[in-house]
């Protein structure tokens, strides 16, 4: 399906812009290459004339041997279909690319991330600062010639482990407080964080410094704040209680997952993906497995496909349950609703534990299938849950919360995102759908066996916090519907294509695998150069990109509503900071 649409794109793009858009002819690669000078013009016609209105992923690859960076864009149509991959190449020395923020505001954080990790400057970006690392950090971590202090080797497995593995604790080689690199002349003792000053400066500009200032002030919410769902900081400019501007400050949980991923073997990444959005590890596994399977050209057997769908949908229920429960926490209903939803989650993670061995860090998917089959009794347990208990409990939560006057007063009309804004901001998942855009990867660009199931794409009308709640509630019901069909239709048979392998030979090429995770579109962009480790491993993290719209939604509202809006976006900091 996606191949056909890509082919028709080839024709039309060539017709549209024949002189400077050339198809990417490298083996295993797809899409088009355009020079940076013509990027804006090309993207404009892609957006306006070809209706590729959704910028899904923006990342870069460092081709060190060729001395150039490649910025990779994945565009989609919100009406569905495959990707349009556009690339632009710059030399490593100049490294300046025009910014897409004027056309796609959703590119803001993604471009900041690319700048942070590669040092590629985006001309025309309104606020180009580091985002995950701090202002003043030396070096560009995802460049291939970057090595952090005490780095052992570039790829795993490390040679010191076997056969002469005399143990050295990592901490002894990598002493606390010494594992940092500073630029020349930098003294951490006397350093005043200019990054903070930069944030305040941006906000002061927004709040109109220089005019007569009445009750205007800048307040830090977080990073240690119970309502921010982790170590997340919002710097808010306030006029009385009204939010004038808001800048999220993230990166407190940053561990450079992508660099770790480029050192790991392909399979070794699987348990690391669990730790992204640690509430929905099965979905994370799913996306990564799909991306690598695309490169390998294998498909899992029938039974494994069913197991995957069952696990992914159970994960969606878990994640949405938590989201609804903790949204109520943010509203002030202290822990009763969240404990009711955690009770159902508990029963589902019991299933994960019995199947995969772990409640949260499941590490269950393998390339070409899943790790192991259902043990005895699990089939029945899932049946009991999805046919009897969960529908009943969802109705309970519905009855308990949906019409509650306080919930409605606090949520209706708060944090409104209009459909065109949601698309432009690259919002995904329940945020996008609550704004009235019925875009669900399971339907728009079906993967695995989702075409076989009968379910609806739930979408809202108003795009406010209340609609996001309703969309999540509706999606739990649809997930149950899928589960009820899947558990009945699940065939017997093998669960893995081929033999279990720990070192897979991945052909040269690139692939972008995406799934509809509970938080939104979760994509994995992988470049293979034929070695046992991925050359580039990038994640399109839905919660990270969804907070691009946070300022948009919170501006003009009350500061107490900013907390609720953040709760309705449903971020997980493990995924935001990576």
């Amino acid at each position, binding site marked *: 399906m996606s191949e056909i649409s890509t082919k028709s794109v080839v024709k039309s793009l060539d017709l549209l812009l024949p002189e400077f858009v050339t198809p990417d002819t490298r083996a295993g690669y797809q899409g088009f290459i355009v020079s940076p000078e013509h990027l804006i013009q090309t993207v404009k016609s892609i957006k306006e004339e070809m209706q590729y209105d959704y910028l899904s992923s923006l990342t870069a690859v460092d081709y060190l041997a060729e001395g150039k960076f490649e910025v990779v864009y994945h565009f989609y149509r919100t009406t569905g279909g495959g990707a349009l991959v556009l690339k632009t190449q710059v030399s490593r020395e100049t490294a300046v690319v025009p910014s897409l923020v004027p056309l796609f505001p959703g590119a803001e954080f993604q471009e900041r991330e690319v700048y942070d990790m590669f040092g590629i400057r985006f001309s025309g970006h309104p606020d180009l600062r580091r985002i995950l690392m701090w202002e003043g950090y030396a070096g560009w971590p995802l460049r291939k010639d970057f090595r952090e202090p005490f780095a052992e080797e570039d790829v795993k497995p490390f040679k010191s*482990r076997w056969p002469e593995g*005399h143990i050295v*604790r990592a901490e002894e080689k990598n002493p606390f407080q010494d594992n940092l690199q500073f630029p020349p002349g930098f003294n951490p003792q006397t350093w005043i964080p200019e990054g903070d000053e930069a944030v305040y400066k941006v906000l002061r500009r927004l709040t109109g410094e220089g005019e007569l200032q009445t009750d205007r002030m800048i307040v830090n919410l977080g990073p240690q704040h119970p309502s921010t769902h982790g170590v997340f900081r919002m710097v808010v400019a306030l006029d009385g209680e009204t939010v004038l501007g808001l800048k999220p400050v993230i990166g407190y949980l940053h561990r450079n997952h992508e660099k770790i991923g480029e050192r*790991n073997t392909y399979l070794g990444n*699987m348990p690391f993906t669990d730790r992204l959005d640690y509430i929905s590890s099965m979905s994370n596994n799913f996306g990564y497995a799909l991306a690598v399977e695309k490169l390998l050209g294998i498909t899992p057997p029938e039974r494994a496909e069913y197991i995957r769908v069952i696990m992914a949908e159970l994960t969606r229920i878990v994640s949405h349950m938590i989201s609804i429960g903790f949204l109520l926490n943010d509203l002030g209903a202290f822990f009763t609703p969240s404990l009711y939803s955690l009770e159902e989650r*508990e029963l589902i993670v019991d299933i994960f*534990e019995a199947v995969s061995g772990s409640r949260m*860090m499941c590490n269950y998917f393998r390339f070409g299938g899943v790790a192991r089959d259902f043990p005895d009794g699990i089939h029945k347990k899932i049946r009991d849950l999805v046919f009897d208990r969960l529908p009943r409990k969802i109705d309970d939560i519905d009855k*308990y919360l949906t019409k509650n006057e*306080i919930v409605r007063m606090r949520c209706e009309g708060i944090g409104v995102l209009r459909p065109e804004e949601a698309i432009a901001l690259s919002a995904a998942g329940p945020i996008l759908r609550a704004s009235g855009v019925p875009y669900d990867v399971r339907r728009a660009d079906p993967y695995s066996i989702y075409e076989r199931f009968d379910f609806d794409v739930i979408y809202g009308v108003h795009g406010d916090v209340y609609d996001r709640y309703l969309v999540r509630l509706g999606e739990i019901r649809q997930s149950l519907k899928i589960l009820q069909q899947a558990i009945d239709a699940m065939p017997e048979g093998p669960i893995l294509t081929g033999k279990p392998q720990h070192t897979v030979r991945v052909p040269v090429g690139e692939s972008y695998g995406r799934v509809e995770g509970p938080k939104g579109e979760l994509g994995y962009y992988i470049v293979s150069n034929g070695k046992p480790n991925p050359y580039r491993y990038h994640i399109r993290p839905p919660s990270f990109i969804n907070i691009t719209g946070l300022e948009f939604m919170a501006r003009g509202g009350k500061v107490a509503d900013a907390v609720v809006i953040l709760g309705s976006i449903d971020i997980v900091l493990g995924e935001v900071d990576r």
Partner: protein
Amino acid sequence: MNGIEILKGLTITLRHFVDTYIVDIVKGRKHYFTPEGIQSRAEADTRGIFTVQYPEEKVPVPEEFRYFPFLVYDVKEDGSKVVRCTSCGICSKVCPPQCIWIVRSVDPETKKPIPSPAEFYIDVDICMNCGFCAEFCPFDAIKMDHDYEIASYDRTTAHIFDLQKLLKPASYYEKIRPVNAESEDRVRAEKEAAKNAPKKPVQEAST
């Protein structure tokens, strides 16, 4: 907006509250601090109090549950220990965080490697409990443990597991993972039989 819906919603809370008493009265004392009681609170039809009073009550872990790895040794009929590990190094290669360190035994005279580990360390501070070592070990020598209570006072020494701490008998493995152990034993016995058996069937087939 007169609060009726809030009250309707609160009937759910009230039902949860009343349910706890009904369940307690119906099930009586055996609902708490007994294996059946703990089990019944993990069933799909559970009502009432849901929490488990750890550490007095412990939820039984399923067979697949994985915590830290351990090494399996067989006990021969004469009482001698045979460590299954051949120090082939596959576990230390597949380990995503690289927390397994192995020193291979070397024959002191010929300087040739012996298939047995001289030293074996797992830094459990770094181990991420993924279970790849157990999954890809060709000799069923390294397995994932069920013992999750390993808190200690000194992480710098106590959290590096050496051979002495890692080695556990095959009987322990059979106890914690009966289904897996049984099927693996069967596969291994078949392999052994195929290896020991002379290549008769093939010859017969060819003649």
